[in-house]
């Protein structure tokens, strides 16, 4: 048996979801019809840190149209802090949030009381009637200072340092003792957020007949949310369904488990025996959906005079916000990527998470990689400068080589697995990027433009991206009994990753179909009961391999039945074009649909004359019972558990122009070299890269969360939080390499986050290069025009 393998995988087929989504026919949580639903609005803390002296909701309860108003006192057992997901010895002081604040508030936006009313307007009116008297406490805003000074976020803890850990590879102390040159610098990435187009939303409805609760939730993880709600609400799985319909972007922040609202809204539906809806508005999203990024790294490189990097030390602190329910995932991912694409044999990395009076951070696209990559790549540029060596050449001398794979960094861990870079061709990626950006000719062009008063600069950065963490994902593939349409069901969700297309391509490839003949069903716990969710560039690595295995099972069955029907040997059959036919005799063929109908003793060929033809074949079964317990259908189920993580890699290069008069920066070119192993759909990979680079550009020059000294969030709206528009994101030139991963049958690696990693480092390097005549050094992201002007003014050649 042979299929036309590779025929569908690797093709940029149009997206199956486009027709629906681009015409505005998607079904988001707010589109789920529930005209009788009650609406929720929250009273949220107006200050960053305070003791609650008075909380009186009686006037709000008495307001017409209000069904209920809850404070923590009304929650009973649910007033308890939400779970800590990943306890660890490096996290001696974990704190998680109570669903509604008890006695104290720890960040602006923290929910204090919940109003449930006939509509959102009334609910918000009632929120204004709640009497709240707060006694201000000093706010912890500067996380680096908070390591060892000033007030505490949580008075019952001895320190603001929630977590403190160190990972070591080789013998870094010796490497530094023996180094011929050491560079050391502090690099900072500011706190930001990822701003999905659709904020969070939860709708919960109790079916009074069966007592079952259905929860529509914008989560990236329906099954973990279901498990959490089963544990919290005491309903068994058969009475508790979580559905993530279309979701307008997640970027990780919707993979958090659990937000208070995700517990409180279902709880309200259960207690009030009603449908209850909460739509997060943009202001709430700014204040109460998790943030990301904020880290300060002090990094050192040890090297020989001829530019061989022998050691790396990094010591970084993370602005954790007030709580740490997600444990150490973000610092771990930052730490696991700190040596990047380089063969640095001795590494030490210390991470500390510091409580502040701000909303918590949790993993979001990139998750620590952009920060540690910023520190590393800036330090490599600094080393090149100190050595008087070309920065591309320094990188070239230190890259992990193709023959080094698998390349282990013993002592570092990614997603619970030891860090072992599995495959790639890093030198080739670098050369491709240098070539594409015109590295060799750039200096001359730069000099010429400088004479004309234009300041151009080039930035360069390499990155690796650990992807495809387990523990597993699964899939069920079957052929529908009448239409013959292929159905694939998984335990994942999708927030814009195009699963309906890429997953369909996997099944179609095995079954010899076109991708639009395959239907993907996701985001419904009632349809598939096991799995984790869509985050960490893991969905395609885990799920595509599971779908492929399940589809292979379907194909084996189909071939077995087809052999019977065509009275041929299974080895002589070929799969393609939706048909199975005898090799060399295309007219002796049977379609997948005909096989599906033929194996089912309950047929409806009399209802649909077009299917009557199945009777012309020999029987699909050699006896009247079901073979091997196969049942009446073509079906396969499989799970895929990776043995380790797959490592994508790439190189970014950019050319910018800086206006030294205003400090404004414009990208002239942006080149991405990207290797995520076998690409299922290159156009979709490009889309992921575009989105990632756009987020990276945001982190380079636009987005930051601004707080005043009292912890007030000063730019909690799109007026002042500067998400770049299409006009600010450069057009992106992409070059692909495809080094298959040896770790899974399809050779796939993840592609969801790579685009976001390098832009801050590349942009900083390019600005620094453009302003080299002034002697500017860039060690923070994002910059903005004012900071660029300030850098020029402070530089040795400044006073422009």
């Amino acid at each position, binding site marked *: 048996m042979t299929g036309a393998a590779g025929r569908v995988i690797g093709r940029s087929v149009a997206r199956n979801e486009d027709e629906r989504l681009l015409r505005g026919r998607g079904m988001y949580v707010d589109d789920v019809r529930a005209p009788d639903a009650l609406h929720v609005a929250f009273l949220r803390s107006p200050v960053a840190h305070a003791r609650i002296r008075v909380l009186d909701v009686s006037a709000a309860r008495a307001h017409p149209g209000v069904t209920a108003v809850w404070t923590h006192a009304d929650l009973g057992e649910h007033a308890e802090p939400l779970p800590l997901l990943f306890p660890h010895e490096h996290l001696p002081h974990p704190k998680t949030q109570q669903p509604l604040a008890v006695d104290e508030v720890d960040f602006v936006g923290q929910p204090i009381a919940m109003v449930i009313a006939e509509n959102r307007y009334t609910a918000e009116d009632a929120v204004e009637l709640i009497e709240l008297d707060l006694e201000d406490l000093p706010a912890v805003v500067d996380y680096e200072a908070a390591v060892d000074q000033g007030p505490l976020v949580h008075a019952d803890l001895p320190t603001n340092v929630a977590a403190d850990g160190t990972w070591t590879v080789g013998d870094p102390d010796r490497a530094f003792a023996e180094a011929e040159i050491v560079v050391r610098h502090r690099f900072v990435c500011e706190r930001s957020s990822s701003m999905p187009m659709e904020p969070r939303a939860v709708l919960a409805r109790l079916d009074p007949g069966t007592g079952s609760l259905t929860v529509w939730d914008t989560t990236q993880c329906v099954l973990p949310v279901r498990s959490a709600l089963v544990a919290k609400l005491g309903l068994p799985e058969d009475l508790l369904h979580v559905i993530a319909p279309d979701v307008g972007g997640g970027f990780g922040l919707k993979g958090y488990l659990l937000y208070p609202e995700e517990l409180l809204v279902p709880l309200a539906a259960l207690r009030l025996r009603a449908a209850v809806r909460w739509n997060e508005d943009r202001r709430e999203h700014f204040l109460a959906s998790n943030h990301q990024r904020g880290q300060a790294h002090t990094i050192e490189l040890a090297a020989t005079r001829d530019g061989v990097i022998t050691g790396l030390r990094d010591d970084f602190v993370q602005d954790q916000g007030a709580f740490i329910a997600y444990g150490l995932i973000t610092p771990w991912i930052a730490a696991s990527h700190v040596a990047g694409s380089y063969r640095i044999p001795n590494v030490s990395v210390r991470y500390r998470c510091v409580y502040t009076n701000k909303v918590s951070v949790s993993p979001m696209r990139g998750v620590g990689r952009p920060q540690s990559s910023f520190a590393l790549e800036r330090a490599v540029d600094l080393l090149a400068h100190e050595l008087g060596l070309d920065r591309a050449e320094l990188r070239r001398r230190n890259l992990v080589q193709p023959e080094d794979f698998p390349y282990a960094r013993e002592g570092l861990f990614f997603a619970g697995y030891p860090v072992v870079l599995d495959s790639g061709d890093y030198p080739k990626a670098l050369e491709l990027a240098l070539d594409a950006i015109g590295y060799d000719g750039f200096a001359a062009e730069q000099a010429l433009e400088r004479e004309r008063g234009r300041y151009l600069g080039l930035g360069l950065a390499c990155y690796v991206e650990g992807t495809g963490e387990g523990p597993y994902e699964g899939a069920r593939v079957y052929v529908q009994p009448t239409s013959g349409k292929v159905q694939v069901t998984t335990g994942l969700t999708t927030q814009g990753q195009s699963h309906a297309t890429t997953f369909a391509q996997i099944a179609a490839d095995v079954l010899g179909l076109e991708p639009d003949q395959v239907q993907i069903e996701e985001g419904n716990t009632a349809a598939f009961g096991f799995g984790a969710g869509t985050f960490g560039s893991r969905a395609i690595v885990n799920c595509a391999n599971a779908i492929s295995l399940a589809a292979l099972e379907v194909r084996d069955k189909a071939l077995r039945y087809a052999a019977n029907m065509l009275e041929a040997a299974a080895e002589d059959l070929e799969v393609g074009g939706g048909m199975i036919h005898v090799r060399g005799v295309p007219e002796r063929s049977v379609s997948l649909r005909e096989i599906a109908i033929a194996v089912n003793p309950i047929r409806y060929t009399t209802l649909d004359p077009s299917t009557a033809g199945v009777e012309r074949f020999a029987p699909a079964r050699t006896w009247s019972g079901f073979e091997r317990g196969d049942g009446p259908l073509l079906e396969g189920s499989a799970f895929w558990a990776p043995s380790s993580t797959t490592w994508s890699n790439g190189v970014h290069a950019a050319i910018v122009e800086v206006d030294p008069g205003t400090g*404004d920066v414009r990208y002239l070119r942006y080149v991405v070299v990207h290797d995520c192993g076998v690409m299922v759909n290159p156009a979709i990979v490009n889309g992921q890269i575009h989105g990632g680079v756009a987020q990276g550009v945001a982190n380079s020059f636009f987005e930051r969360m601004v707080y005043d000294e009292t912890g007030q969030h000063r730019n909690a709206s799109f007026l002042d939080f500067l998400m770049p528009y299409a006009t600010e994101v450069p057009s992106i030139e992409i070059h692909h390499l495809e080094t298959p991963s040896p770790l899974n049958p399809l050779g796939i690696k993840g592609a969801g986050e790579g685009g976001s990693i390098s832009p801050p480092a590349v942009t900083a390097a390019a600005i620094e290069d453009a302003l080299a005549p002034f002697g500017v050094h860039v060690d923070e992201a994002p910059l903005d025009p004012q900071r660029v002007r300030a850098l020029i003014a402070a530089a040795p050649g400044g006073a422009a």
Partner: protein
Amino acid sequence: MKPPPFDYHAPATLDEAVRLRTELGPEASILAGGQSLIPLLNLRFARPSALIDLRRVRELVYVRAGQDGVAVGAMTSQRELERSVDAARLCPLLREAQRCVAHPVIRNRGTVGGTIAHADPAAELPAALRVLAGHVTVRGPRGERRIDADELFQFHFTTSLEPDEILTEVFFPALRPDAGSAYLELSRRHGDYPLAGAAAIAAGDHVRLCFAALGPTPVLVESDDPADWDAAIEPAGDIHASAGYRRELAAVLGGRALALARERATGGAA
């Protein structure tokens, strides 16, 4: 982000609108394109007792070009002004400034009268009105009167309209044939309010500059000496730009806008 309760009126004529404006008192607000007012309502920063929506008052929608300038009805969309060929010919500055205002979808709804009445000192059209020495017409219970741009802008978001008056027309005088004009700004993103903006007109030795976002009103200076500009502006700092940085921008953008205006004056081009 839902507004508190308010009464809603949508008069069909200017007379009726003026009557309602008097009757409902200063607690009521005029609603034009809503691009500034609706966000304020949704954030509950503004709590008017009633809205008087002018969208049905069609008599306030026009662009009339004459010898001496362009008269624009208050309810004309910014987009319509931007697209007007006559306006672009008579006052080339308008299209240049208008294109820096937000994005087409917002200019489709935002009105010319709204942006002038809103009097955001960072807004582009107020600076253009002032550098062109324009004026507005307002109507109230005491009848109609004219207010020159120099008198109109009082302070941040404050004009010299009386609480019972409605702005009905904005008049932009034509640029003299021997003059050149230019508008330049630095904004963080395309279409954002500027960190600083400079509108310049040059005719022979005579120059007029008007700066946006550099004081509590658009700041007019009739000098080509950056020291005079620096003395005239009163920039404030915010999270995007300090007062000091805004002063730097005034010098850079003022200089560039003036140079461009002079080049256009002598080149005879727009």
